[in-house]
Every structure is written in C-alpha cells, then in structure tokens.
C-alpha cells in the first residue's frame, strides 16, 4: 500500500529556491523564458561559452576536470582575479562554488516555456547580517544574467 501514498516531488527550480533561502546574502531570481527546456539548458549548461556572456564580470570559465556530474573549473575575472570552482552539473541543475563565491542555475519545463533560476553571491562572514538589506537590489542583479541568456536564445 505504501507505494500508493502520494509523494511530493521537488523540481530543480524549487531546489534552487531552497538553496537561495538558506544561503545568506545571495542574489536570486527566476523567470519564465518562452523557449523549450532543451534549447535553454543546451545554452546555459555550456558553461565555458555561455557563463562569461551571462555574467559579464567573468572573462573566462575553463573546465579543468570532469567526472560524471562533478567538475572543477578555473575562472578569471575582468580585473584579472582568478578562482578555482567546484561544479555539479546535470540536466536542469548546476551549482558552482569557489572559496569566496557561490553560483547556481536551475531550469524546469513549464507551460509557456522554461522556468529558469539564477543564483549568485559571495561566501563571506557577515552575509547573514547584510543579506536582508540587499535582497531587493540583489534580485535585479540576478535577473540580468537570465535576460542575457534569453536575449542570446532569441538571436541564435
């Protein structure tokens, strides 16, 4: 009988909401992109090419090793900063983390297109305190990479 009890599923965008709600001070936004899931995720998951387009502070993002859904990457910023990232990437889900930065993307097919979520922020002491203060501005910041991805999909 147990198999007949109705279980609740948690899609990747809901999981990213959980990560956003439990990571102090991050910028988080989601948006319905009017394009099929495969088209959206094919673009977004091409981290080396697409991530620097979405996050304009980023000059390059190079995958340095990959094993299953786990990867490592080396990022360079516009000002020459460098950071090593641990990455988890699978269909509809990506989380990236360096010593000082955290990022994430999630996507799920929805009526009218694809719901796409973006998360980004600093991993620093004190973010718990300033997080609530910067939340409205942070949402606008997180919408920009999504808008850039959406624009790319339209002009491809």
């Amino acid at each position: 009988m147990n198999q007949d009890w109705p279980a609740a599923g948690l899609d990747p965008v809901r999981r990213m909401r959980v990560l956003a709600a439990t990571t102090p001070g991050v910028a988080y936004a989601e948006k319905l992109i009017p394009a099929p899931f495969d088209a959206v995720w094919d673009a977004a998951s091409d981290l080396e090419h697409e991530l620097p387009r979405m996050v304009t502070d980023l000059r390059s993002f190079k995958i340095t090793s990959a094993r299953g859904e786990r990867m490592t990457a080396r990022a360079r910023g516009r000002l020459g900063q460098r950071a090593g990232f641990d990455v988890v990437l699978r269909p509809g889900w990506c989380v990236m983390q360096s010593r000082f930065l955290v990022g994430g993307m999630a996507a799920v097919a929805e009526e009218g297109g694809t719901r796409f979520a973006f998360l980004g922020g600093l991993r620093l002491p004190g973010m718990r305190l300033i997080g609530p203060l910067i939340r409205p501005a942070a949402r606008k910041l997180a919408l920009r990479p999504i808008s850039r991805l959406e624009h790319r999909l339209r002009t491809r």
Partner: protein
Amino acid sequence: MAVMTGLPGIDPALVRAAQRGDRIAMAGLMDALAPYVGKLCGPIALQDGPDAAQEALIAILKSLRGLREPAAIYGWARAIAVREAVRVARKAARVVPAELADVPAPGDPQLVTDVRDVLARLTPEHRAVLVLRDLEGLDERAAGALLNVPPATVRTRLFRARRSFRKAWLE
C-alpha cells in the same frame, strides 16, 4: 533507529561539510533528503506537497548547525518535515476537511478507493498521525512527542483515521 531502515545512508562527512557552509555539500544533502521529505509531505499536504517539501527543506537546512549527530539526520528531518507539512496544509486550507464521521460509509456511492481522495477527507493532523504510524512505523509515544500531543490523542486519532481509511481502501 529501527524505523529508519531501508533509507539510503547519508555520509556523515557530507552533513559536516554542509554544516560548515559548503553549498555543494548542502545541495548534495538536499538531493539525499528530498525523496524522504517528499514522501512525508505528500500525504499530509496533498496538492500543497511540493510547497511543503520546499518549506521543510528550507527549515531543515537553516537549522542544520543545530544537528549534533549526523547519524540522526533522518529522524531530525522527519520531525521538521511533518510539522512543516501540517503548517503549510493548514495555511493553504483549500478545502475544509470533512469531519471523520462524514467520511462515507461502505457502500455509499460517494465512497472512493483512491488513497489521495481518502486522505483529503482527513484533517492535516490526522494525516500526520497516519503517516507517522502507518508509513513510518512510529509508536504512539514517539508520534505524540513529534506532534506535541499526548499518546492517547494519537491513539484516538489513529483509530478513527485508520478505520475510515481502511473502510474506503478495502471497499
């Protein structure tokens, strides 16, 4: 911990890393806990199950630092998930659940055999008792402690809920 058997093991190192603020570990822990949390929240919150599972995981991860023993994570997550599921279901209050006495008697044409339909006729608190006893195998004392009600209340709720449930189920 006997009731926890059958669940996939969670590496204590993953829990410790998540407690230190490692977001990849936190996401991994969420992957590990999501099926279990969804299994508990679904029958209690029904159509609001995904909202309840989301809120439960937020509550679980936010208070993760308070978990002293990683091996206790399933029992700890269960307590939070059941409380969140009842809270979300009550808040949503999409329909006012029927009193148990209103559950159709056997032979009533209204009677349905679908588990979801039967659950929908119970209050969130009754559904929580059923989940803890019939799905999770807790005794009255443990279920009562988790729901903040005396064991006798659990026994009464369970007897009535189970009877209604089984009548419908067996029909």
